[in-house]
């Protein structure tokens, strides 16, 4: 786990566990509790989810501590409802098994949940950390081997940092045109 200014270690772990529920990844080491290790390759956490959540541009930084507390509150309630006995050594959300984290996330993210907006926003930041590396310039993220962009096969830019695809078309007619196409090429 990394240090992040303004957040306690428990809060960071909790946010990481949530991000890992959204885009799961492999553990960073044998003692990693936040990342559940439910999928191969780096997930949202390794892609910078907490950095993105903390970015001043995103607007969530000021409420992350209460979001982490909220997650743990919901996890406590979930554990009580489902008869679990969570490990007190880690925050309640982190103590949940991956399947329980998913089940709880589905409740929080489901239509009709009073806090759905909040948890969707936090999930969006987690997804975007993985599939856009939005806390970095895309050119830098690609150069640094960003886990999400790399796994997606996102193609790198030219050496000057600009994307150019000179070959882009099959270059032949592939269907009959609609019979009522106007001379300008529009539908009638």
């Amino acid at each position, binding site marked *: 786990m990394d240090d992040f200014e303004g957040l306690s270690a428990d809060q960071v772990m909790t946010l990481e566990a949530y991000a890992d*529920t*959204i*885009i*799961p990844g492999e553990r960073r080491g044998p003692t990693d509790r936040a990342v559940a290790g*439910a*999928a191969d390759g780096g*997930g949202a956490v390794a892609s910078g989810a907490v950095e993105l959540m903390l970015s*001043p*541009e*995103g*607007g*969530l930084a000021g409420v992350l501590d209460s979001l982490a507390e909220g997650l743990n509150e919901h996890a406590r309630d979930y554990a009580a409802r489902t008869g679990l006995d969570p490990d007190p050594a880690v925050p309640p959300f982190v103590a949940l098994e991956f399947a329980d984290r*998913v089940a709880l*996330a*589905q409740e929080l*993210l*489901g*239509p009709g949940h009073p806090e759905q*907006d909040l948890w*969707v*926003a936090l*999930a*969006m930041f*987690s*997804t*975007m950390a*993985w*599939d*856009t590396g*939005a806390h970095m310039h895309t050119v830098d993220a690609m150069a640094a081997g960003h886990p*999400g*962009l790399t*796994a*997606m*096969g*996102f*193609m790198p830019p030219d050496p000057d940092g*600009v*994307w*150019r*695809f*000179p*070959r*882009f*078309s*099959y*270059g*032949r007619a*592939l*269907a*009959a*045109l*609609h*019979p009522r*196409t106007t001379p*300008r*090429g*529009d*539908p*009638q």
Partner: protein
Amino acid sequence: MFDRQGSIGRRMWPKSITRESLDPWYDRVAEALPITRGGWDDVTYAGGVFAAACHHAGRTANPVAAAIDTDLCTNCNWMMSGCRFDAKRSLLLNYLPAAVDHGAQIRPLHEVQRIERSADGDFLVHYTVVDPVDYRVRVDAGAIEAKIVVVAAGAAATPVILQRSEQTLGAMPYAVGRYFSGNGERLNTAILDEDRVRDVLGLDRGDGLAYAANQIGRGPSAASWDRLDGSLPEFSRYSLEQLYFPPGFGTILAQAPGAEGPSWFGVEKKEILRRWQSWLTIFIMSEDDNEGVFGPPPSTGNADRISMQMLSRGNLRYEPSANTKHGWALADADIRDILERDGLSRVMPWTNEVIGAYTVHPLASCRMGDDPRTSALDETNELRDHPGIFVTDGSAVPGALTVNPAFTIAAIAERAVPNIVRAAQARGVDVRYLGWLPPAARVSREAPVTSSAGGVPVTVRSV
């Protein structure tokens, strides 16, 4: 489309607007932007796969017309945030420089809050100036006097400004902030089987790959119009278009086909994201029911800003009606029929359960019409009961168009200009309608922006 009734039981468009009467205005816009007819050489791999799949399923497909300078375009597909090559022929290269050359002042980062009537019957337009980086921060405020006001803040903002102006202007027509349409929009993501693309459709890029080119292109390049048949009943007509959004916006709502766990996040979502280059996004533009309604306006701005620029929360409510859902279901089934045929792909619509319905084509929230009860503007684009205020953006379009709207929005705005000129003349403004088209520029200009740091003007690229 112009004869649509929606659910109001009468023609939604003013009777003076027909395809024939609008055609000359379409022609002007096509020349000004300029929009060019696409050929098959302009169709990207993604558009090509869609067209070939349509053909394989017995449908037609067309290259779409676009205002792109194909000599300059690099097919980088980053156009959602402007074009650094000036290949996208946006307003920065035609209408805006022409307006500046005719004396118009452009004031970037000025956010209009409300309109008031001055003591002598003119208007006062109140604005704030926002910080160039953090739009939540207000750095200045002021007001502009005007004899005529043209509101064109887009269908998500125009009704908000007008609603907020009620306190000083008096009651707004009932249709301000009602009848919002999302252009019947819905997206599906197909995850293509590369081998089937090669074997069934006979496609090959020439470099050993059949497709794997989701990233390559320039937005939409091919569409299928088989269901745009005027003889079909309303709410069953739609077009299907190949589209691209970059990761993030273009991935978050996509669902893993056949998922046993959650479909838009989690392990199965990550698996489909690994195949992202084989994704093909298909856009449905159908006939919705104008079911969007704006709640009370936020205290400032068009919506409450969460992020510096990206995320905000507005007061629009949109519950898709049975009519809208009917069209979506037909279109979803059609896309599956085309793209799952012979194992070409697996298709899933984007989820509506996360952020509700979504659209990139907001329309109709301050619409034109002949009926004062269901339209906010008369057929000249003037706001009912508030002479001198005109609305010329997507909010004026009465309903879903089943095609991309920018061309129609622009044609309606062009058509409104002689009316605005007449209203200005009547108020003693020395102005004439010349009907000149803006000359095309190849390079966009720099825009002066005032930074928050001590009011020192900084120059930023205007894209």
